[in-house]
């Protein structure tokens, strides 16, 4: 497994896989395949993909340690940046398609609606992580401080669930929220157990 994952081409494959959702959404929007309300479909599915890739990122360390697949660490940065990419697209889709890029409207929406605010907080918290994702940033900050900073991703995972929960609460529709919550709980729970060992 390790040997196989260390192959030169695997990073390109992961990069391609990470691009697939946005490519697919682009093609679907272009060819009118997103149903009766394409704007809603775009805003929602970019949010879904952010959460999905976030779960993938959080599963790397547990999988790496549990199954001793050290090569998985190679993909962590790229996948982390994909989370940031999708959260930015998600925000832009909301700001553009829902709010017509009226920054004043976006601002008052943030103040008025807690679930929007929490989503925006996730974007803000992920920004310094993306900005310090290159190798030299680790040197500048020092490994410990860099790691502390990047633990913010756990906070983001919880806030992202709150955001999703609040959004669905309007329609009492929690099944998917609970699935993601269970996955995130498992992944964060593993870390807590691992740290206390």
């Amino acid at each position, binding site marked *: 497994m390790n040997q196989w994952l260390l192959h030169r081409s695997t990073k390109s494959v992961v990069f391609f896989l990470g691009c697939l959702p946005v490519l697919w959404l682009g093609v679907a*929007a272009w060819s009118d395949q997103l*149903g*009766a*309300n*394409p*704007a*809603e479909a*775009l805003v929602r599915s970019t949010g879904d993909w952010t959460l999905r890739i976030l779960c993938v990122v959080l599963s790397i360390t547990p999988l790496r340690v549990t199954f001793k697949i050290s090569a998985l660490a190679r993909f962590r940065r790229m996948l982390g940046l994909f989370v940031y990419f999708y959260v930015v697209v998600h925000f832009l889709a909301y700001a*553009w*398609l*829902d709010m*017509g890029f009226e920054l004043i409207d976006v601002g008052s*929406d943030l103040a*008025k*609606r807690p*679930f929007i605010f929490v989503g925006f907080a996730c974007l803000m918290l992920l920004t310094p992580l993306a900005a310090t994702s290159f190798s030299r940033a680790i040197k500048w900050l020092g490994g410990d401080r860099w790691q502390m900073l990047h633990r913010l991703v756990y906070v983001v995972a919880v806030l992202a669930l709150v955001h999703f929960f*609040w*959004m669905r*609460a*309007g*329609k*009492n*529709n929690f*099944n998917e929220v609970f699935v993601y919550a269970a996955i995130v709980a498992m992944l964060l729970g593993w870390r807590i157990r691992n740290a206390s060992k």
Partner: protein
Amino acid sequence: LAARVATLDGGVTMEKPTAYKDASTYNNFYEFGTDKADPSRNAHTLVTSPWSVDVEGLVKRPGRWALEDLLRLSSLEERIYRLRCVEGWSMVIPWVGYSLAELIKRVEPQGSAKFVEFVTLADAKTMPLVGSRVLDWPYVEGLRMDEAMHPLTLLTFGMYGEVLPNQSGAPVRLVVPWKYGFKSAKSIVKIRFTDRQPATAWNKAAANEYGFYSNVNPAVDHPRWSQATERRIGEDGLFSKKRKTLMFNGYENQVGQLYAGMDLKKLY
């Protein structure tokens, strides 16, 4: 479904009707699933014949109405109404039916009847979500008597000139065009006249979010989203700005007087 074009004030909007494909594949009918594509995929299991509607409660002539008799009770009209969903999207739909008032007059409500309650089908065998905890089943809606008697309130059997597709609430539903869509109960099996405000499904689920009246009102936001604007399905392009939502969904001239003196911010 043969029908004459309605002549009453507000009965026919000149706006462009939504494509049938959009109107029949983008639905909220939670009994068949919470995703908007679910009802069109799942509602084929709904058995719409035989069908009957029980009229009960505070009326002089209670009884069971077979669908065929309901269809013959008054002449069918085509009404082209705006439909505004509480979620912030809208459509324009040509419905076929007649004013609910025709039925109400026929069953002669007692003086003590102040509200009308609509109970819809809850059949766990054919409706996958009945039994889930998403809502308290059966789905119940209600109107004040004067709202129910308003000529725009439509007892509906068809759309786009045909019988209702299952996902749109076949074989008989309500359409109340100045209220958010969820007030327009689908697949009705019981109409009850009461002296008490009915406990309605979404109001029971989240009273602070869905009021009993739920009149379309751009000035009263849903706690989770703004109601000031809406997206017209199929018409407003992906990048066009949303259009402004109108008070009472544009039916203020026809229904505004029903709410004279009421604080609509409190009684939302």
